C-alpha cells in the first residue's frame, strides 16, 4: 500500500511540473507570435515561424490516419431521420455551408455526414469561364500561386517545398512520350527543366485550399489528357493555412494523388492532397485507386498509367468536367 501511495504521490507531484512547463512553452510561443504581429503591423516583414524537426516529428507521431479512418467510419453511420436536421444544421452553421447552392437542399435526404459532405451543386451555380484557358478546379481559398523558381514551390508565402519531392522522380515521361531524361541530382533546377517540354515555356503553380464547409468535389481545370497517376500514401496532417505557414514541406508529408499529363502548352498536373478530416481521395475514372489504407511503407508511392496499347492518348478531360472528390475518413 505504501509503494502504491508513493507512486501516486510521485505522479501527482509530476503533474504540476508538466502543467507548468507546458503552460510556459505555450505562453512563450504566444508572446513570440504577438511580437510578430506587432512588427507586421508597423510594416516590418517577419519571416514565417517554421516548425523545427522535433515539432514536425511530434506532429507526425499523432496517428492522424487512424483518426481519419475512425472519423470516416463514424460518418458512414446512417443517422435516424429526426437527428439529421440538427446534426447537419450544426455543421452548416459551424462551417458556413451555403445550402441554397446544393443540388438537394432537403437535409433529410442525406443519410449520413459522409453523404452530406459529398453533396453536389446545382449546375447553374458554377458557370465555367470560357474566356480563360485555366479555371479553378474547386471552391476554396487561393493559398499561393505564381512561377516556379529553382524547383521550389511555395505552399504559402515564404514557406516552400521541393518540386521533386512533391511529384516524385520524373519517370512518368516514359509513359507519355517514351523518353526518360534522368534528372541531375546536384542541379535541382534540372528536374524543373525536365518538366518544361517546350522552348520558351515556364513552370507555374497554384494552391487552392478547401475549407471544411466548401463543396468538396473537384473538376478539370483545363482541356487536357491525363496519362499517369502517382499515389503517395502519407500523413494526414491538417493543411489549413495556419499549419501550411508552420510546417515546411507539409504537402510532401501528406497523402496525395498526382495526376499528370499534357495540355495544349505541354506538361500539366493536378495534385489532390488529403488532410486529417478528408483522408480519402476519389478520381472518378480511376477505379483502382485506394487511399488512406491502414498499412503503407513510408516514402513509398505507386504508379499507374492510363495509357495502354489501344489507348495512347490517356484520359481526355474537358475544362470543368467532374474529375474527383475528397471524402471524410
Amino acid at each position, binding site marked *: 500500500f505504501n509503494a502504491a501511495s508513493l507512486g501516486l504521490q510521485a505522479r501527482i507531484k509530476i503533474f504540476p511540473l508538466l502543467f507548468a512547463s507546458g503552460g510556459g512553452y505555450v505562453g512563450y510561443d504566444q508572446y513570440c507570435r504577438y511580437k510578430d504581429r506587432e512588427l507586421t503591423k508597423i510594416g516590418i516583414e517577419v519571416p514565417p515561424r517554421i516548425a523545427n524537426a522535433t515539432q514536425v516529428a511530434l506532429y507526425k507521431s499523432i496517428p492522424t490516419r487512424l483518426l481519419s479512418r475512425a472519423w470516416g467510419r463514424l460518418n458512414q453511420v446512417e443517422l435516424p431521420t429526426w437527428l439529421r436536421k440538427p446534426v447537419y444544421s450544426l455543421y452548416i452553421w459551424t462551417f458556413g455551408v451555403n445550402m441554397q447552392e446544393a443540388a438537394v437542399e432537403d437535409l433529410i435526404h442525406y443519410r449520413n455526414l459522409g453523404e452530406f459532405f459529398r453533396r453536389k451543386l446545382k449546375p447553374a451555380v458554377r458557370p465555367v469561364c470560357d474566356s480563360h484557358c485555366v*479555371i479553378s478546379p474547386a471552391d476554396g481559398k487561393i493559398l499561393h500561386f505564381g512561377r516556379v523558381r529553382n524547383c521550389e514551390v511555395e505552399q504559402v508565402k515564404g514557406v516552400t517545398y521541393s518540386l521533386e519531392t512533391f511529384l516524385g522522380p520524373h519517370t512518368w515521361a516514359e509513359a507519355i512520350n517514351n523518353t526518360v531524361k534522368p534528372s541531375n541530382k546536384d542541379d535541382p533546377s534540372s528536374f524543373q527543366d525536365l518538366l518544361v517540354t517546350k522552348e520558351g515555356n515556364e513552370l507555374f503553380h497554384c494552391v487552392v485550399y478547401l475549407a471544411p464547409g466548401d463543396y468538396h468535389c473537384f473538376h478539370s481545370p483545363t482541356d487536357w489528357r491525363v496519362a499517369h497517376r502517382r499515389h503517395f500514401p502519407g500523413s494526414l496532417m491538417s493543411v489549413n493555412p495556419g499549419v501550411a505557414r508552420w510546417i515546411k514541406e507539409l504537402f510532401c508529408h501528406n497523402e496525395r494523388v498526382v495526376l499528370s499529363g499534357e495540355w495544349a502548352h505541354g506538361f500539366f498536373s493536378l495534385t489532390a492532397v488529403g488532410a486529417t478530416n478528408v483522408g480519402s481521395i476519389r478520381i472518378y475514372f480511376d477505379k483502382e485507386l485506394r487511399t488512406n489504407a491502414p498499412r503503407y511503407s513510408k516514402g513509398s508511392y505507386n504508379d499507374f498509367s492510363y495509357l495502354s496499347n489501344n489507348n495512347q492518348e490517356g484520359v481526355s478531360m474537358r475544362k470543368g468536367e467532374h474529375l474527383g472528390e475528397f471524402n471524410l475518413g
Partner: protein
Amino acid sequence: STIVLLFEAPRDFTFNLKAGQKIRFGEPLGTM
C-alpha cells in the same frame, strides 16, 4: 484538403488572382 496545380505555359501566362482570395469552381485562374 488542398489542390495543387503545376503546369508549363508560355512566359506570358498571367494569373488574375490575389493570395488569400476566395475562389469558386469554374472561375478563371489565369490565361495567356
